[in-house]
Every structure is written in C-alpha cells, then in structure tokens.
C-alpha cells in the first residue's frame, strides 16, 4: 500500500511533539558539575617528591611546553674514603598550558610516577601568561587527582604486586622446607616409629620440599 500523501508531514510533527514531552538531556554545567571519567584529561599534576629531574618529560613533549631547571647537590660519602653522592634538586617545574596539546606523552614516559592527569578543567585565565603553571600550582593539582580506577577483573596482575607475591610465596616455601627438614632429622634419630606414617600423601609433601630447596 502506498503511503498516504501528507503522512510524512504528520510524522514530522509527531516526532517533535514526542521529543517535547521527554526529559531534556541538557546538563546545566556551571550549576551542576559534569561527571567526568577518572581518566579525563583536564590538567597535568606534579608529584614533586617523585621527580628525579631525568628530563624525559621535557624531552618527549612535542610542544616543548615543559620547563625544568635544576642543580646538583653533593652529599658527603657514606663511608670514609668513599665517593661523594650527588643528586638532582628541582628548582623549577612549569607547564605552559597555552602550548600544551594534552597528548599526555609526558605522563606516559615519566618513569617515576611524578606526573598525573587531573580531571580539573576550569583554569581559564584572562592573561595568557597566567596559563604557565609553576610547580606550586602543579602540586595543588595533585590533590585533585582521583584514585586510579580498579583493574578489570580479568586483567593481568600489576607487575609490582606479582613480584611481591612471588617473593612472599618463595619465602613461605623456604620456611616450610626448613621445618620439614627438621622433622626428617628428628624421625631418623628415632627409627621404626615414623615408618608406617610414610605413605602416598607424604610423598607429595616430600616432592614439594625438594622443589622448595631447589628454589631456595
């Protein structure tokens, strides 16, 4: 059946009328803050204590908007006759957000977790010079960085945790092996008593002991 002439016009009217009766999707931004995802790219925060002035961020920045000044300080040798210890001290860390293109490469390359994304985005200025945030301001942004989101349930274990867990397991096994050996020594000192107890279950235990010893 061909469509009734003019039914398209009626359909158009119906669409607008239906939209009018629905709730609007407008977010009243300045009154209600937007709910930003935790990884939003608002502003870059600096956790100064972690910075070693390795300059990787400044070198990788495509816009050259990161300014770092530092000097070296030397500490006396730990033992007499040893070499003097030197370390970098940060004098200035500034990011010019009028140049920054929010690529996040600096955060990506920072080997010591000194740079973070903060979702704060309301830092417009009337003077473009004020968009250069010095270290104290970058530090203030640090307190707005949200906790990292929980890992996906199926995700791989974080490297640090995996390493720590392995070390803990190893220590546990070593302790178990030591205990088993002690028990073995005690049994050999009193033969005949422990013989009936040596069965299949104990075998597995003995094997794991071997392994533990090998690892240790």
């Amino acid at each position, binding site marked *: 059946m061909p469509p009734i002439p003019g039914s398209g016009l009626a359909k158009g*009217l119906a*669409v*607008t009328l239906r*939209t*009018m009766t629905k709730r*609007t999707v407008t977010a009243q931004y300045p009154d209600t803050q937007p709910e930003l995802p935790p990884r939003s790219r608002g502003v870059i925060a600096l956790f100064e204590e972690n910075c070693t002035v390795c300059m990787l961020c400044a070198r990788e920045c495509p816009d050259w908007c990161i300014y770092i000044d530092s000097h070296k300080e030397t500490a006396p040798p730990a033992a007499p006759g040893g070499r003097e210890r030197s370390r970098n001290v940060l004098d200035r860390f500034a990011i010019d957000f009028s140049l920054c293109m929010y690529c996040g490469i600096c955060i990506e390359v920072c080997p010591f977790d000194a740079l973070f994304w903060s979702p704060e985005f309301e830092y417009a200025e009337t003077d473009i010079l004020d968009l250069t945030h010095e270290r104290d301001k970058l530090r203030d942004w640090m307190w707005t960085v949200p906790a990292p989101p929980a890992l996906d349930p199926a995700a791989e274990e974080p490297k640090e945790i995996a390493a720590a867990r392995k070390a803990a397991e190893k220590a546990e096994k070593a302790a178990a092996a030591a205990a088993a050996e002690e028990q073995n020594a005690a049994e050999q000192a009193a033969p005949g008593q422990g013989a009936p107890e040596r069965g299949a279950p104990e075998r597995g235990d003995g094997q794991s002991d071997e392994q533990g010893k090998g690892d240790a």
Partner: protein
Amino acid sequence: MNDTLDVVLRLVAVLVVFLTFPLLVGQAEHKVMAHMQGRLGPMYAGGFHGWAQLVADGVKFAQKEDIVPADADRRVFQLAPAVALLPYLLVLIVIPVGPNGFVGQTVDAGLILVLAVMGVGVLGSLMAGWASANKFSLLGGLRTAAQLMAYELPMLLTAASVAMAAGTLSLPGILDGYHWWWTPWQLVGGLVFFTAGLAELQRPPFDMPVADSEIIFGAYTEYTGLRFALFLLAEYAGIVVLCALTTVLFLGGWHGPWSGSAGWVWTLVKTALLAFVVIWLRVSYPRLREDQLQKLAWTVLIPLSLAQIALTGVVKVVIS
C-alpha cells in the same frame, strides 16, 4: 465624555495586548522550540526558567547603535520597521474577543479592513529591502514581494468563503452567525488561510525571503538595534493577529461551553493553541525552496481555496 473614556480604555487595552502578547508568544517559542529539540532554552534571565529573556533581549537591542547605511534611502529605511509593525496594532483593534461588544472597535467591513491592513505589513519588508542599498536585501525584498503576491490571493479567497457563509463582512457578525458545523464545512479554507498567513508572516517553513543562511536575513540585513527588534516584534505580533483571525473566522472565536460568561477565554485559548501550532510547524519542517514555495501557493492553495468557495456557495444555496 463617557464615550470618549470608553474608546480610550478600549484602545489602551488593545495597546497593552499588542505589547504583551507578542512577548508571550516569543517566550513560548523559546521554550517550546527548545524542548522540541531536547534542549532547555533560556534558563537564567529573570529567575524562573528564564521568563524575562525577551525583556533582557529588548534591553540589549536598545543599547545597540542604530546604523543607517551611507547609500541607503534614509527616510524610507527608517520608516520601514514602523510600517511593518503598526498594521498589526490596527488589526488588533477590530478583532472581537468576546460576545456583546467585547472588541476594540466594531467595524462593519471589518474583514476587508483586516485583510487590507495586513497587506500593508508586508510593505515594510519591501521598503526595507529596497532602501537598504544592499543587493541581498533587495533580493530578499523581491522574494517578499513575490511571496506576498502568491499568498495574499488564497488568503483573500478563503476569507471570502467565510464571509459568504455568514453573509456579512463584519467580524462580530460572522461570529454571530457561527454554528459548530461551520468548522468542518470550512476546514479546507481554514487550513489554506492559516498556511497562507504563515507565508505572509515569513515564518518557517515559508521564510525563504529572510533565509539567514542563504541571503543573510534578506530585507533586514542592514538593520541594527531597535529597528531590527521592531521587525522581530512585527513577526510575533503578526503571529498573534493571524492566530486570532483564524480563530475568529474558522474556529468560532468565543463560541464554546459557557461562552456567555467566559467567551473571551475561549478566544484566548484557541489563539494560544494556534500560536503553539505556528511554533510547532517551525520546529518540524525545513525551509521551502523559493520555487517550491511559489508552486505550493499557485498549484495547491489557490485551487483549494477556489474549491472551498465553490463548496460554500453550493451549501449556502442548498440550505437557503
């Protein structure tokens, strides 16, 4: 003395209606259009849902510089907004709101007066287009002229059909003769009248002459500040007048339950509903192209209005 006071009071009432109703329609358009597009519309001016948005707009317009282009025909250019706006004020005077003389002024040939005066309104755009010394304005003005030519005819024909049915040209007279079955009888005429009226007002989807994206606001390109605001006001006053007129001619004006005591409410309700439809049409339909616009008038509306006149004549002869 008492008569003079009566006339003055009626005229003041009409003036108040003229100054407030277009603003109401404008504010309704802001909100209705926004919600039909899934937005909120103005929310700040005046507090509750931005009710004072148009007042704020008026203040803004008043602050702007009034510019007349160097090559413009100065006098005509400056007069054009007034010519566009004032006819609607005149028309409002003769539109009956309720029974028993609830009208600004009864005029025997009210229908003719209304149609003639409304035709003058479009002259304002024409003057603006010509006097601006701007080829886009001139194009817009010429398109306005063409549109006026095309749509005035079906409007007059359908109005004539109602006058035939009532046997009078007086607007209160037409309402006195109204029966409920006139609405289905004159339905086609009513639709044609309303559509043609929209086109006369250059409301979307018939706003090709002002088409801001094609010929940058047509005849109004060179206008600034208050004069531009007057053109906008004329558009909204035109909506009020057109809806009131359609109500009176085709929807039975103050007729309805309890029309003896609350007749004027019926007129207002019907007018408001029609104004809503005007806004609704604007949101729903895209702008007609210039040739489609002309084609609609000459090949659809005029034959329909002629058919309506024939039908009215036949029914009139049959029932008499």
